[in-house]
């Protein structure tokens, strides 16, 4: 004989602990119900992907990996906007393609510019040789330059007066003239 307890929760626990009496035909009725269910179709690839996507999972990341993931999200959210200096705003849209390419794309965002030129070792540092083209409405300037294997220093020249390094590329240590350059290295193997 159990003692009656006053706490409603404890009374509920006691109730749930009481054994349940099953009717003799319980098992037969369950099996009959199962047999009446429609046979599930074999899941296709889309269904499998959808099932995978909606299933909760544990993702393990190193602290560095977590930081990288956070940076990717932040970059996506903020559009990679970064202030570079007075009157110039640049969005890093990807470093010049440099692994083994022959045509390297240079991109910089300078919304306030009326002209942007790419100037560097590959065009005799001639400000008129490689003008960049604006992408309408975005303040983004781009140009494609064929380059052979090698290491090239370059800068962007904004409005013919303001030198700007590429925020997406390494800077050079060879700063002989008081204005740093960016560098692109094109490989061959």
């Amino acid at each position: 004989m159990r003692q009656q307890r006053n706490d409603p929760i404890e009374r509920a626990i006691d109730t749930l602990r009481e054994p349940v009496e099953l009717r003799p035909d319980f098992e037969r009725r369950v099996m009959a119900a199962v047999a009446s269910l429609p046979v599930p179709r074999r899941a296709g690839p889309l269904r499998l992907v959808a099932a995978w996507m909606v299933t909760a999972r544990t993702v393990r990341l190193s602290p560095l990996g977590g930081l990288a993931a956070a940076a990717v999200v932040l970059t996506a959210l903020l559009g990679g906007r970064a202030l570079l200096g007075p009157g110039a705003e640049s969005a890093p849209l990807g470093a010049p393609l440099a692994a083994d390419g022959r045509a390297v794309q240079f991109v910089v965002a300078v919304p306030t510019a009326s002209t942007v030129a790419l100037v560097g070792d590959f065009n005799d540092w001639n400000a008129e040789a490689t003008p960049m083209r604006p992408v309408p409405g975005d303040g983004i300037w781009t140009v494609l330059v064929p380059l052979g294997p090698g290491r090239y220093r370059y800068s962007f020249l904004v409005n013919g007066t303001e030198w700007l390094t590429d925020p997406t590329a390494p800077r050079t240590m060879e700063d002989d003239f008081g204005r740093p350059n960016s560098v692109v290295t094109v490989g061959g193997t």
Partner: protein
Amino acid sequence: MRHRLLAAVLATTALAAWHAPAQAQDPRLARRLPDEVRIPIEALIDSARARALPAEPLVDRALEGAAKGAGGERIVAAVRRLAGELGVARDALGSGSTSAELVAGAAALRAGARSDDLRHLRQRRPDRPVTVAAGVLADLVAVGVPPDTAAAAVLALAGRGEDADYIAFRRNVERDVALGATPTAALTVRLTGETLSSGDAPGPTRARKP
């Protein structure tokens, strides 16, 4: 008479050909530099040519100075310094090195690498260009990796790394540094990952000779 004329023409042609390098004027320099700057620079370039060093990087450096409005003395000093670095790079990398390799080697030297680092790099990649490897060395130093650590990492990858591997390695280190990792820690982590995936023993640091 005809033989004398032919001999005179041949002698004049030979003299002109022998004398030409010392008097060669690059029209790009002539257009963009005043004579008092152009003349000493052309002398430096002639001297470099005589030592079998590439002239184009020196012309580029002078033109960069002109484009940026630098003073004449500064331009001459920059060209002289680069010529010296190209010479050291050539001695370390070998006389058969390409101009691109020497430019990258000079950049690595400027960043703080030793000529022995370039020599070892050539030894480990005897049949492959070292342009990207030397350039990545300079780039790693530029993001804050100590020169000896950067050199050790580049040498550790030298035996098997393709150019694309080097560039990916550099980008990963730069990304980690941008996210807040210290340059040395970022390089060590990335290098350990590379060496573990290849089965090589990691060796990101080493003692530097006094």
